């Protein structure tokens, strides 16, 4: 881990000499966002602040996918009454653990004068320390005063300082300042009439983008010192975070969102048809792909496009059953390289992608083709018309149409369906050598499977050459740039950011499609922190929290 960290630091350090020069085009920025923390972010933040053994028990409200990402939907969702009921209960649960006898000594910055009575001074120290970490900025005087008073009253009522303090902490955990990530902004001193995020809001964006968690103490201190408002200070923090092993948490979170891996939580396969597929296999298939991704993009500092052609991956024993490969490692993963000529190469031929975009009991060239268009190439495939007769298409018992290709060809000749299916099915047919659980097969219903096809005029003959076609398609890295930016900013790029987006794409290409460098380019750019006023606001009216 450490070795990799140093290597990345060296690589991005070199880049620092050239990046972020005056060639960065002007950008309008976009409105600041107010995002509801995701479940993963909530859990990670709690673990970082209070310790990994503090349990978070409760149900999170489902996210909403907007512009293909939950990260964008997070800026649209709110908290329903039953959702708040859960936040309130989770907050109490966390506070009770943080202040129990096992944890309090480690977390308390002071000792109360008496364990059975209020001690406002000590309560203020504790709530001030954790309030800053939870709100991503120091608490304001009245915020701190109110929480101390809640804790004081509770300590009085219950005759217990720590039990009382729990209520103050629970209040911070249920507050909108914690549940939502609000981005504060201020006039940009360098550009009259323009606005930028405050230093604390910058810290927040950086930290959630790179580590998928709340800013740590060091980042908040850098914000307090004003470091994040200088190019040098910002680069120093970004480089620290990019060099940390925690970068993998951030990269995993991004790809989990981009590839829709949250769907693994309720992915079920029919146990009669696919007896080897289980919940454990599903989880390990997701882990396999995330390992493939972080290994290529971070550990080996590779080209993003190679994700679609790489033969290097990782296998566990339960996965070996489906890949029909021996795995020596008893528990956990070991590296594996598919042989030249193996039908598998690239992310699309991993079980995660294949099983996720299939029906519970059979494969689906349509779902897989649609996923490639939407997730990898950022295109939109319209929904099917309402009055469709699919019965000829998918009658697997019809002796005339043995393979999915036969059945879908019948489909594509129907003019109402042809428009869309022409652009999605041929992609999916390239992956038909893998069944609904992602297992290899040469035949379907006794007929050999033809995996040839074409994507936007480029012919391919199997999964490997489909991967090559995606590798060579300029839309593939362009889509990644757009998605990373959406993910980072929590919204679609605005028209005023067009030039900057083009610049990011061009720099990503010029640098050999290295993800850490793209992240750095965004993280240390002024454009990333530019803000346009939200609709209905002529100036920021809130006092800046600094």
């Amino acid at each position, binding site marked *: 881990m450490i070795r990799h960290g140093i290597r990345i630091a060296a690589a991005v350090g070199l880049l620092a000499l050239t990046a972020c020069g005056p060639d960065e085009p002007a950008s309008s920025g976009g409105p*600041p*966002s*107010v995002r509801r923390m995701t479940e993963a972010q909530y859990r990670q933040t709690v673990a970082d602040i209070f310790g990994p053994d503090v349990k978070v028990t409760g*149900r999170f*409200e*489902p996210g*909403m996918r907007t512009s293909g990402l939950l990260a964008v939907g997070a800026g*649209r*969702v*709110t*908290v*329903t*009454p*039953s*959702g*708040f*009921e859960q936040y*309130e209960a989770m907050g109490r649960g966390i506070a009770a653990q943080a202040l129990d006898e096992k944890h309090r000594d480690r977390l308390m910055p002071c000792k109360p004068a008496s364990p059975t009575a209020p001690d406002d001074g000590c309560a203020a120290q504790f709530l001030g320390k954790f309030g800053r970490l939870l709100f991503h900025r120091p608490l*304001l005087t009245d915020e701190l005063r109110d*929480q101390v*008073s*809640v804790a004081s*009253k*509770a300590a009085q*009522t*219950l005759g217990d300082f720590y039990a009382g303090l729990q*209520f103050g902490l*629970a*209040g911070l955990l249920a*507050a*909108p*300042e914690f*549940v*939502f990530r*609000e981005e*504060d*902004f201020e006039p940009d001193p360098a550009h009259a009439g323009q606005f930028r995020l405050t230093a604390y809001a910058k810290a927040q964006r950086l930290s959630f983008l790179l580590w998928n968690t709340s800013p740590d103490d060091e980042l908040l201190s850098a914000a307090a010192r004003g470091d994040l408002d200088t190019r040098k200070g910002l680069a120093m923090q970004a480089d620290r975070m990019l060099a940390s092993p925690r970068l993998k948490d951030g990269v995993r979170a991004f790809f989990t969102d981009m590839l829709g891996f949250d769907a693994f939580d*309720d992915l*079920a396969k*029919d*146990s*009669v048809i696919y007896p080897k597929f289980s919940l454990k296999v599903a989880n390990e298939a997701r882990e396999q792909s995330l390992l493939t991704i972080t290994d290529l993009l971070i550990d080996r500092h590779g080209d993003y496009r190679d994700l679609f052609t790489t033969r290097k991956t990782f296998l566990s024993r339960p996965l070996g059953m489906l890949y029909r490969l021996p795995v020596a490692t008893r528990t956990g993963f070991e590296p594996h390289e598919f042989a030249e000529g193996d039908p598998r190469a690239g992310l699309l031929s991993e079980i995660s992608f294949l099983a996720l975009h299939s029906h*519970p*009991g059979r494969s689906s060239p349509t779902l897989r083709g649609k996923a490639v268009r939407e997730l990898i190439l950022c295109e939109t495939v319209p*929904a099917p*018309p*309402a*009055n*469709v*007769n*699919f*019965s000829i298409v*998918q*009658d697997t018992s019809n002796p005339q149409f043995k393979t999915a290709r036969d059945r879908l060809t019948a489909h594509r000749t129907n003019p109402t369906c042809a428009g869309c299916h022409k652009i999605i099915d041929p992609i999916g047919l390239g992956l038909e050598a893998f069944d609904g659980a992602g297992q290899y097969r040469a035949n379907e219903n006794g007929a050999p499977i033809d995996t040839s096809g074409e994507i936007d005029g480029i012919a391919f003959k199997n999964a490997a050459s489909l991967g090559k076609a995606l590798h060579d398609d300029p839309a593939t890295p362009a889509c990644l740039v757009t998605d990373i930016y959406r993910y980072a900013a929590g919204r679609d790029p605005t028209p005023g950011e067009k030039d900057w987006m083009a610049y990011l794409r061009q720099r990503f290409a010029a640098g050999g499609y290295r993800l850490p460098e793209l992240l750095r380019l965004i993280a240390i750019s002024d454009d990333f922190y530019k803000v346009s006023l*939200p*609709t*209905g*606001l002529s100036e920021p*009216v*809130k006092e800046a929290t600094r």
Partner: protein
Amino acid sequence: MNRQFGRRTLLRGLAGGAAVTVGVPLLDCFLNTNGTALAAGGRMPVRFGTWFWGCGMTPDRWVPKTLGANYDIPVELKPIEPFKQQVTVLSGFQALLDGRSNFPHSSGNISVRTGSAPDKADEVKAPTIDILVGDVMGTDTRFRSLEMTATGDPKHSYSKRSANVTNPSEVSPLALYTRIFGPEFQDPNAADFKPDPRIMLRQSVLSAIKDHRDRFEKNLGAADRARLDQYFTSVRQIEQQLQLQLQKPPPAEACLLPKAPPETPVGTDIEMAIRNHKMMAELLAMALACNQTKVFNVVFSDSASNLRRSGSSTTHHSLTHEEQIDPKLGYQPQATWFVERSMEAWGTFLEVMTSIREGDGTLLDNTMVFAQSDTQLAKTHSIAGIPIMIAGKAGGKVKTGIHIAGNGDPISRVGLTVQQIMGVSIDRWGSGSMLTSKSIPELSA
């Protein structure tokens, strides 16, 4: 709150001419923000809920041939036969899209529940009826409403204040049990009652949160402000729940603390769904009997039903599109199998609701359950004649045991009538061609 029970409703009740005295069954409406007064008066609370199944039915096998009372029971309705006197069937009402696309499994469901057709898939332009009814009658119980689905996915909920405010469903019977009957449950029939000081402290926590609302919202644009307003409305509702827990709950004769259910696997396997649905129905019924909520939303299968049979390569939804119509039978046998199981689950739900005695009748007699699907015949995504059933008399306000044909009338007439019966003070509902002020008089007792 009296204003929510309008003169209009009262007059309509009179004009409806049914053989009930006006005062008695309507009284709860006047009192519905005051649970203790109700209990003191010995009247049973009235409840409202929805029960949803996906992928519709087969018109020839589901729609009764005869209208009015004593309607015949076609084969797909067989499971409700024992409860026929408690169920009114509504057929032939139409979702009118005014030239908009029929977004499969979305347009129909949203039209039924909101009276407004979506312009794009899953758009929700107005609150769903359970929200509108809940705003009027759900404010005096510990839970404003309870949502649950037998499919294992919390996103399967059609209780929506707007497209981005969906009340998520509970998916596990055990989690549902813990939420309702866990440590925070106060037995309404317990002899002694001592308000828990911790509840007051939790109130002070929430009050401190609300004190900083203005500052948090100051810099927000309109859309974000609306989202935060919803958050603070949610905080307010939990405050009200806590307030109720500081008062001695009114006794509830039918309330018995149920045993905790076992942890069960959840998912789209129909056997799992049937099992989990039954357990959740039993917990819900007891939650209603114990006055923990008055409003509920149950999903047996999601819209575009993903339920599947173990060992089969397809889901209910896929079957509706892919299975051949059996020329001898005249329908899709496998897809129809799922319809029949769905109606059996509905029968189970009714059985559970009638198994709890309350006063002279059953829990169902004091409830109105609005059951519906997302399509008529799912094969063609037909939204002409989406099946609806109304079960339970809501304390004497609903005429059950009849079959009403809509003859192509806007399906929003049903939603309008349901709201008026439940005490929502409105005289028109819906939008476009579904805007209607014509309620269905036959439905009111």
